[in-house]
């Protein structure tokens, strides 16, 4: 049944909530991963730079501490540790310069030196290119000597930044790995989250699709708050549908009763009158009236049958039907009508019961209409053969055929016959609405079968067969 529902599903899928949710979660994860990566790299760079600055400042301070004022001039005894400490962690190049009163005391006399202001004796850091490499430099100012005019000595120590770059690169690669790992984990979690967020929807879908076709009770599944309006709307819709369907069925039943009974009364009255009349022109007029009444009754009956069939094929009940019994009952009920024309209905049923899953009323209706046609188009004193057998060449299918000895279809437009209000080309003299075969065809197809129309032999009667899947 769900297969049938999918076949006729008119809804084209447009986007997927799960995919949308997943993509959005993924985008958030990607942004967070990238932010994490950038922050870690930035922080790592700053920490590495701060570390280098600390060592440079320590180096410059130890040099400044070794400054002396001897014999009227500044001297210094460069401490071994001042430069060796810069080489303990990495293999960076080291430069230094000591300037006293604008004169380079020792070191690299082309090393650029920031001029720290005497008022703010904090170490000044700078980054610039020197001798082919980018260097980080510190300059600090130290007054040396006693008296009122101490000599201002500027001590600069510079170091290339390869070690710092190496530390940054290492931390960056770790940050990259963590960022990628974070993203991968977030991807997996996003998939799970998208799935679990949509699980109530899947649960509801399942509980709806599991229902029988006629089950229009309101949905009682516990739904998340966001879906409650939808469930309410669905339930309201189903309630309206239930009411509408009930009303339609009541209407059809009511209409059948209201139309058939007055027509039958009218026909009986007309026949009584007919018998009383003697003048041939009056009798002729009344015969045509009876004929019109018959036509109306038949048309009304078939249209109501068709309406019923249409209503029920939308939700075929799959109850277990004993087809052989159904055929026997229907034929028995038809025997008096056929008897009026001296037509014999012969049933050929298999000995074993034939069972299928279907709608009893629809099947009765279909057979009734086919038999009605057969009786109508059969000449008096003929035989209608109703045969129930296995469909040759198709396992699990049964063929219910009705063969008459009427005029057949004259070899023409067999496919047209099942169209609504379409009649054969050679039936102008017989009352009919053209709905009989349409009803049979619709019922056959609602059960997953088809209607097979053929001629016994040209001009020697029609054979209408319902081919249905058996249980």
């Amino acid at each position, binding site marked *: 049944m769900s297969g049938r529902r999918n076949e006729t599903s008119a809804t084209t899928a447009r986007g997927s909530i799960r995919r949308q949710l997943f993509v959005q979660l993924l985008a958030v994860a990607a942004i967070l991963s990238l932010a994490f990566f950038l922050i870690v790299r930035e922080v790592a760079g700053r920490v590495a730079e701060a570390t280098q600055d600390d060592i440079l400042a320590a180096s410059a301070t130890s040099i400044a501490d070794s400054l002396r004022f001897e014999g009227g001039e500044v*001297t*210094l*005894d*460069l*401490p*071994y*540790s*001042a*430069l*060796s400490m*810069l*080489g303990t962690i990495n*293999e960076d*190049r*080291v*430069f230094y310069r000591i300037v006293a009163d604008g004169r380079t*005391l*020792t*070191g*690299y006399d082309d090393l650029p030196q920031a001029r720290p202001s005497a008022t703010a004796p904090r170490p000044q850091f700078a980054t610039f290119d020197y*001798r*082919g*490499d980018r260097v980080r430099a510190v300059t600090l100012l130290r007054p040396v000597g006693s008296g009122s005019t101490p000599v201002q000595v500027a001590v600069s120590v510079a170091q290339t930044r390869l070690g710092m770059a190496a530390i940054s690169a290492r931390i960056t690669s770790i940050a990259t790995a963590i960022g990628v790992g974070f993203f991968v984990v977030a991807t997996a979690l996003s998939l799970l989250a998208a799935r679990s967020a949509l699980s109530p929807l899947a649960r509801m879908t399942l509980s709806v699709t599991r229902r029988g076709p006629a089950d229009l009770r309101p949905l009682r599944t516990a739904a998340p708050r966001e879906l409650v309006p939808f469930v309410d709307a669905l339930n309201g819709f189903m309630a309206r549908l239930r009411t509408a369907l009930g009303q339609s069925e009541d209407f059809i039943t009511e209409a059948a009763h209201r139309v058939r009974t007055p027509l039958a009364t009218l026909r009986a009255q007309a026949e009584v009158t007919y018998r009383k009349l003697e003048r041939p022109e009056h009798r002729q007029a009344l015969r045509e009236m009876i004929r019109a009444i018959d036509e109306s009754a038949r048309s009304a009956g078939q249209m109501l049958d068709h309406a019923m069939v249409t209503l029920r094929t939308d939700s075929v009940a799959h109850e277990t039907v004993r087809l052989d019994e159904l055929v026997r009952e229907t034929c028995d009920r038809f025997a008096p009508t056929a008897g009026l024309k001296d037509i014999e209905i012969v049933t050929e049923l298999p000995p074993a019961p034939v069972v299928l899953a279907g709608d009893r009323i629809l099947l009765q209706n279909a057979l009734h209409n086919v038999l009605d046609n057969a009786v109508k188009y059969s000449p008096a004193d003929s035989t209608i053969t109703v045969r129930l057998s296995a469909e040759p060449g198709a396992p699990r299918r049964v063929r219910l055929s009705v063969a008459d000895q009427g005029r057949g279809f004259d070899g023409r437009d067999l496919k047209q016959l099942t169209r609504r209000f379409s009649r054969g080309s050679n039936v102008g003299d017989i009352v009919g609405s053209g709905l009989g075969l349409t009803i049979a065809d619709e019922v056959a197809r609602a059960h997953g079968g088809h209607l097979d129309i053929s001629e016994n032999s040209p001009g020697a009667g029609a054979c209408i067969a319902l081919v249905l899947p058996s249980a």
Partner: protein
Amino acid sequence: MHRACLAICLNAVLAVACVLAGTGAGAAFEAEARKFYPAPNAPPGAPAQTGAPAAPDAAGRALRIISTADLDAFEPIILGFQAENPDIAVDYTIASTSQLMRAIHDEGAVFDLAISSAMDLQTKLANDGFAQAYRSGATDALPQWARWRNQVFAFTQEPAVLILSESAFAGIAIPRNREELIALLRDNPARFRGRIGTYDVRVSGFGYLMATQDSRNAEAYWRLMEVMGRLEARLYCCSGDMIRDVADGRLALAYNVLGSYASARIAENAPGVRIVQLNDFVNVMLRTVTIPAGARHVDSAHKMVDFLVTLGQRPELAARSGLPPIDDRVLRANNAMRPIRLGPGLLVYLDSQKRRNFLRSWTSSLVQE
């Protein structure tokens, strides 16, 4: 009485200092001597020769090495290298450590390799941007302490040792550390007066390096210098002279002699000489090679660097050159062995103020005039 450093520590054949015109570079620089080794695969008629090569174009293609190592030590290495690389001619120039430094640092002379026993100057070359980096499997296999910035590669480890004449120590215990040496000298002034030799750090770069490292490592150094000064120590420029004088019996002991040469010479022909590695600490000097930034035959230079740093894989060649190759196991076996650390610390004693201060202290201790 101080012996002036008259003798040149190089091989007598090459001892004549001469000024050579630097080919190609156009810059003049000072060097001790020069020898050209044509490529073994080159057309015949160009034998090994002293001085500038006969064919200038041959010199133009040759691997130009400036080195402080004399040919006694280095010729076997060059020939061994050429045996493996017969297409490479070698133009070998011998210079003192300071000449080498001036040539590359100040005068911009073009060389493909600079080989020096002055670790501090080599470090300064690299620090000041005069060396280019090189990495290979061979250089990566060096211990961490034997390379710096992939620009300075050590290929020998040469301990500074005490050598003494066995006859002079007859009847007294051989000192095992600096404290014992100081005590011994104090207790036996008559025996050792005028018979102690050590480097004149004012003229010897190696002596200066060893002295500064000693002073950094031990307070005892200055007391030792005081004692030596009082005993009228003789000052030398070179290890070879000290070894010779110990062998002759003119010196009872020589302090801070380069172990490689000492062991090589003694093994040859001096039975009464003994080498002592003090057990408080032994400074280990590393002979290093760098590729100058302006090198022209970089591929050949790379091959030579690989050849040098893998000297340990050719023990027979190492023995012939008398240069002990880098071997971490030797250092691990003796905890007193301390390789001088390459790095910016070496720049400290090159500082002019520092050097002036150090030499002032050293002179006042040792040269007590």
